[in-house]
């Protein structure tokens, strides 16, 4: 298995991946207006942390809270995949059935082909898993 296949099979990594800087060269969605009440902000953060084991929460919390304050959304930049986002031949996707491989191919390439729209922010992270 190559690095890409390993990353796919691993899903959300058990260890904290290194922090990621935001690539300003990529076109990003503009900052959203502030809409959540204080209680709803708590909810947003609790919701985001649902994806990660409890021992990681202390470290992730300030980052996620920072994103919420800065962008009005929690993008979980740290968990952005490291592999390049593009369409690969179907045989490259690790899968037990060919339909699932076809869906992985389409899911990844739909993101990469978004081109000039703010893909990095707009849709990527909630679709990641």
């Amino acid at each position: 298995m190559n690095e890409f296949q390993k990353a796919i099979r691993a899903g959300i990594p058990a260890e904290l991946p290194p922090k990621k800087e935001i690539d300003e060269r990529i076109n990003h969605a503009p900052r959203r207006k502030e809409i959540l009440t204080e209680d709803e902000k708590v909810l947003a953060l609790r919701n985001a942390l649902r994806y990660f084991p409890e021992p990681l929460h202390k470290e992730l919390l300030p980052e996620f809270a920072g994103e919420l304050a800065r962008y009005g959304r929690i993008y979980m930049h740290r968990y952005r995949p490291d592999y390049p986002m593009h369409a690969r031949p179907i045989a490259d996707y690790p899968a037990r059935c060919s339909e699932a491989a076809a869906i992985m191919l389409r899911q990844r390439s739909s993101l990469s082909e978004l081109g000039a729209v703010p893909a990095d922010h707009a849709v990527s992270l909630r679709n990641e898993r």
Partner: protein
Amino acid sequence: MQYLSEMSDEQTLHMYSGHPMGLFPSQKGAPRVVITNGMMIPNYSKPDDWERFNAMGVTQYGQMTAGSYMYIGPQGIVHGTTITVLNAGRKISKNGEGLEGKLFVTSGLGGMSGAQPKAGNIAGCVSVTAEVNPKATETRHSQGWVDEVISEVGELAARVRKAKRDKEVVSIAYSGNVVDVWERFYEEDIQIDLGSDQTSLHNPWAGGYYPVGLSFEESNRLMAEDPVKFKEEVQKTLVRHVQIVNKHAQRGTYFFDYGNAFLLESSRAGADILAENGLEFKYPSYVQDIMGPMCFDLGFGPFRWVCASGDPKDLRETDLIAGAVLEEMAEQAPPEIEQQLRDNLRWIRSAEENQMVVGSMARILYADSAGRILIARAFNQAIREGRIGPVILGRDHHDVSGTDSPYRETSNIYDGSRFTADMAIHNVIGDGFRGASWVSIHNGGGVGWGEVMNGGFGMLLDGSDASDSRLEKMLFFDVNNGIARRSWARNEGALFAIKREMERSPDLRVTLPALADEKLIKDHLNQA
């Protein structure tokens, strides 16, 4: 992705607005993935509801094909825009002349709108597309999707005069606000033949539309820091935008709404956009005038496929297969659909030359139910014979049956049902149990959250007999569902198409409308 890499062909993954709820036991032949995006209780589907629930991480905007894993870059929209511009050209043609030396003015160089310059070139006119975001302009220019970039409006006017005079086929990006272009061209008396707009007006308050007179950076700041003021500025610009379009229209410009909610948002901003009856808009949506009656009602829509091997040779082979099918169909077609088949034949023959692949080995063309089935069957045969690898079928959501959208896909439905969404829901359920590999349904997409229900599908062809049976059943329903609804709404083309289909397909029985005489009813009501 982890779930997908683990699942068997007897499980289904359920995606709730981007969240993988989990893998559930199902069966072979069932969809492997069911996707919903932005499904809301209808009363909670206003723009601010989206802002709130999206910020909380419990919903997302699915857009159209991006949220259903069927986005293939701007090729789909290039094709749709080319067909629209060509047919708009036919509408304004006085003596059968083409678009040579005619001018098309529009805006937007984003993911969808970035297709306009290329479509203008394929249709053979001079096009000017304005874009406020320099990064988007740069992306499209570096990708070769637009020929020239000009950022000074006076220089633009001079360049356009020359291009029109010399009948050049050229696409020019104007780096700035489109309102400045319309106003300057009016002052300088430059005739705009076709006009449209593809700013992201489904998202007017958060970056989809920018006020004239403010820089891109200033606008972004204002949007976040003073959203109320920003909204006012946007609305002021919309009013001014419509004013100048109206002036050009008096000089003969054919302006059409390209489905981005331009008409809707300008009317909400108080612009002078309503027709004399106070109900309809001054300008047609391209679906009402062009796409609806000439394509969707007859079952023609954006069928697409992706060669899963990623091999360009496979794509070339599928282009040849599809071309051969279309040619044979065109020779036997009744006049009602022959023009459509010929336009698409021309498209597929030059598709490779136009270099529209941006990643996946993907292709789009418009075909009706019979055409889609014949092409897919021929692909499956080629896979079986080992001539090509597996093929993934899909389509744009902007189609006959998949989308209920009262100002776009279903804007030419006149029986009052265009504000209902039964068709789109039946479509996704019906595709799901007829053999799609995955299905999706979204609230929002194109025209905005709360304004549309749209769905799509994907289907893997692997050369098996099972693929043959699935493609036939699913594609048949995926087109004829919408034709049935359009014919029930009394649309002439759809009545023609569904009657023709019933003659061919004994198992299809659609309820046909009796056409009541409107005058009879009015007279009766006046007497009473």
